[in-house]
């Protein structure tokens, strides 16, 4: 394990600080989150529309160097910030060499410095191979792991195209719980044919595993996936929306009773165990995103890196950064995002705060008549300064948002 970059690379990083495109002298203080994307997976899951790719061999040195310089580029445009979280997402970042993880964490600390309670999460597949690396990853600085368990039923795992079985997954979870302070795992539910009772049993089992955080996603057929093809051919019949609604309500009931209430549409946590990194997204904090396809939102810009690994690498060679698009977000766009993202949270939004941040009057942000109408239906509520979508409303969020959001 070699947590620090070699001297040569360090020199390169320092040179990059002179990049004139970032020499705007705009020194913004404050907190920052960092997202690092590792785009490779062993195989492609049939439901997955993430930026994940299957490649025969990965030149690990080259990737490490490239990610480091992509980070350095962000560092030059974001001086004076302090990192509150780092998130290694993918793809399957648990396939990254722990040394690369360590190097990236160390570099990040050098660039920005860490908040004392920094959360450093890595997404991991619950296979025995990966579980064997958990200790090294912990040593590299990872303090939170998010496991793609996906199901506690072998048939469902097979249906989802997962390589692991339930026993292997549970073993990996145990290893993770020993290696990391905080552990989350994902489950996918509302699978075709899944009964309410079966889901309740699985969820009860899952809660009993004792993690402080659960991400519980209803299966969504995303365009361009294998499931989408099967659905179009009629070979896969998605769950009936009314049944899915029943499952959603049961999920809320069980997790609340167990002390892991939903703080976002699909995320449940013991109080204090929420993903700080993801909260940054939903609360409109600044975040830098590096690696293929990573998105960033920082000082009013939206950045997107090249999606395809090869294109991103080529861009790195060319420009020493992987940015494909860099758009200035208008105040309207920022406000819209604040509403769209913020209303996913149980805590909702503070319209006045968004108005203050974007300079757009609250009357232009939120459609008061729609809010009043939805309030009588019990779908939204106003709690002191905040506007929230209620438990009942959360299931209908996508239908509620276009009514409530006045701008855009």
């Amino acid at each position, binding site marked *: 394990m070699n947590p620090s970059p070699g001297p040569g690379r360090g020199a390169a990083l320092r040179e990059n600080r002179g990049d004139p495109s970032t020499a705007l002298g705009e020194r913004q203080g404050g907190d920052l989150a960092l997202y690092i994307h590792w785009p490779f997976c062993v195989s492609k899951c049939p439901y997955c529309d993430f930026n994940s790719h299957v490649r025969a061999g990965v030149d690990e040195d080259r990737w490490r160097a490239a990610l480091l310089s992509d980070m350095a580029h962000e560092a030059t445009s974001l001086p004076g910030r302090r990192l509150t979280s780092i998130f290694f997402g993918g793809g399957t970042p648990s396939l990254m060499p722990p040394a690369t993880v360590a190097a990236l964490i160390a570099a990040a600390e050098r660039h920005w410095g860490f908040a004392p309670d920094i959360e450093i999460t890595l997404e991991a597949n619950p296979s025995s191979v990966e579980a064997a690396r958990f200790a090294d990853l912990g040593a590299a600085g990872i303090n939170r792991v998010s496991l793609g368990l996906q199901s506690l039923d072998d048939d469902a795992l097979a249906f989802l195209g997962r390589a692991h079985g339930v026993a292997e997954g549970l073993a990996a979870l145990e290893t993770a719980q020993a290696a990391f302070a905080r552990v989350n795992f994902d489950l996918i539910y509302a699978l075709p044919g899944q009964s309410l009772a079966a889901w309740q049993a699985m969820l009860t089992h899952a809660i009993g595993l004792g993690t402080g955080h659960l991400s519980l*996603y209803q299966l*969504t057929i995303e365009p361009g996936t294998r499931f989408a093809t099967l659905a179009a051919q009629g070979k896969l019949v998605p769950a009936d929306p009314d049944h*899915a609604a029943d499952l959603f309500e049961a999920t809320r009931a069980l997790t609340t009773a167990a002390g892991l209430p939903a703080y976002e549409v699909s995320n449940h946590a013991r109080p204090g165990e929420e993903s700080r990194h993801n909260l940054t997204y939903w609360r409109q904090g600044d975040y830098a995103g590096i690696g293929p396809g990573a998105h*960033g939102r920082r000082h009013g810009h939206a950045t997107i890196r090249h999606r395809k690994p090869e294109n991103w690498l080529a861009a790195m060679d060319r420009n020493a950064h992987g940015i494909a698009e860099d758009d200035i977000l208008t105040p309207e766009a920022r406000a819209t995002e604040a509403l*769209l*993202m913020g209303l996913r949270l149980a805590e909702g939004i503070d319209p006045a705060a968004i108005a203050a941040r974007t300079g757009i009057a609250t009357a232009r942000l939120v459609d008061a008549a729609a809010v009043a*109408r939805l309030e009588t239906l019990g779908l939204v509520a106003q709690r002191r300064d905040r506007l929230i979508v209620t438990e009942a409303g959360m299931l209908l969020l996508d239908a509620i*948002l276009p009514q409530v959001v006045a701008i855009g």
Partner: protein
Amino acid sequence: MSKASTPLDRIRNFSIIAHIDHGKSTLADRLIQRTGGLTDREMSAQVLDNMDIEKERGITIKAQTVRLNYRAKDGLDYELSLMDTPGHVDFAYEVSRSLAACEGALLVVDAAQGVEAQTLANVYQSIEHDHEIVPVINKIDLPAAEPDKVKKEIEDIIGISAEDAVLASAKSGIGIDEVLEAIVTRIPPPKGDREAPLKAMLVDSWYDPYLGVVILVRVVEGVLRKGQEIKFMATGTRHLVDRVGCMRPKIEQLTELAAGEIGFITAQIKEVSQTAVGDTITDAKKPTAEALPGFKTVQPVVFCGLFPVDAADFEKLRDSLYKLRLNDASFSFEAESSAALGFGFRCGFLGLLHLEIIQERLTREYDLDLITTAPSVVYKIQLAHGKGELDLHNPADMPDVMQIASIDEPWIEATIYVPDEYLGSLLKLCQDRRGIQKNLTYVSGRAQITYELPLNEVVFDFYDRLKSISRGYASFDYHQIGYREGDLVKMSIMVNAEPVDALSMIVHRSTAETRGRGMCERLKDLIPRHLFKIPVQAAIGGKVIARETIAAMRKDVTAKCYGGDASRKRKLLDKQKEGKKRMREYGSVQIPQEAFIAALRMGDEG
């Protein structure tokens, strides 16, 4: 310019009578080809069907004529005028005028399908015009062809001899010479005094962008010349003839058309609406004493609203309607507005096919996206307290019940021809539609039924039902027989307690509930679920007669949404807001325009 007129005994004027798709246009094509009217290269299938719609749907809408030169087996040259007439009841009057312009007819019967109701209606008309009828049994190339059975049908049903019927295949060119010989030897030449004052029938007219309005004429007496001042006896207008000619089918200019001949004229007329089919044309200075019999003004019988899906297209729709009317004076339109559908036009048509054709031409030739409201007929409302009579074209305009003494509706007499096995269901259909059976006879395994029916029940998907009940084997023809009083009511449709004007209709009290239920069920499927539950009701006056409830939506949420999805969510929001623009709001219910279109398009039983 061509020579003067052909002697009467060398002229043959004939029309072709056939049920839809029995091969009339194809046979016409063959005759043109055989007599050299067009080279092979110029022949595109169905040359006489000019409009795209005619070619595509294989139906004839406007009457067409073509003059053929034929050297018969007797060694003499004949001038044959062929009239290809529309084959649909909507254009029955035009057919009758085309028939009146001829001395004989080819009766084309599909060797596999046999005689159909429409064949009958037209053939009887033809017999009324004292036509010599030459049966042509077409499509003998088909494996299912049964020429002998069809011959027997012709004899049994129509009552004319089919012994000398020509067996033909218009498609493969079999029997074409025999058809030509039969025309010459069996159809009589026209009569008519060429010295008498001009008397010609206006058979049809259309707008040509280069020539202006072209008028198809049959000269009955006298001579029609270029430069002549003529008078339309019914409309009373005078015009100067600037072109005289015939179609071969390419235009050929002539110096004159004499008694017995069919041809065309142009007379600097700008709009087809200035010409009336069936009118008598005479010499303005030396007029004939008496007009030709049989003239009538055609009135639209079926009405519906046409609205642009995109409100911005209103002007374009208006212009397009004007342009179409240049060529088809038989439909009418006036501006109308609807809370649901915005600004549009109330249009009148000769029948459902006519409606469909105009609608299709608007969408296709003028690139308009349209919503069509449910077709309705013209009701005559007798106002209370002797306040007179009102023609009601639009259910939305129906006066308050208190002001109505009674309502009269148009009735038709329908002739339906159907194979035995479907008779039961057919009688039920007619009965359900308030029909009164007038006659029922059997001929060779088929029934011929005559029913009196309210037109209102027919414009509403009767034809589709008839076809589906009989698997397409029933055929149907009708004519109007006047107005009768009916127990009619206005049925409103309410969504979340608010009436939707575009969906209101006038129905007979006895069928209101069925219709209302059907409409509510359909809307239940068409209106997307909302955040609250929505009652959909059909009502007469204040009384609800049918009700459905659209359950509240239960789930619509994106499961996963992280950093990069923010822009995606913004795009989705834009799309949702864009979609909202295509919605109409009723009682806070967003009804997509597509739902209106589908609700109105679908038939009775869905």
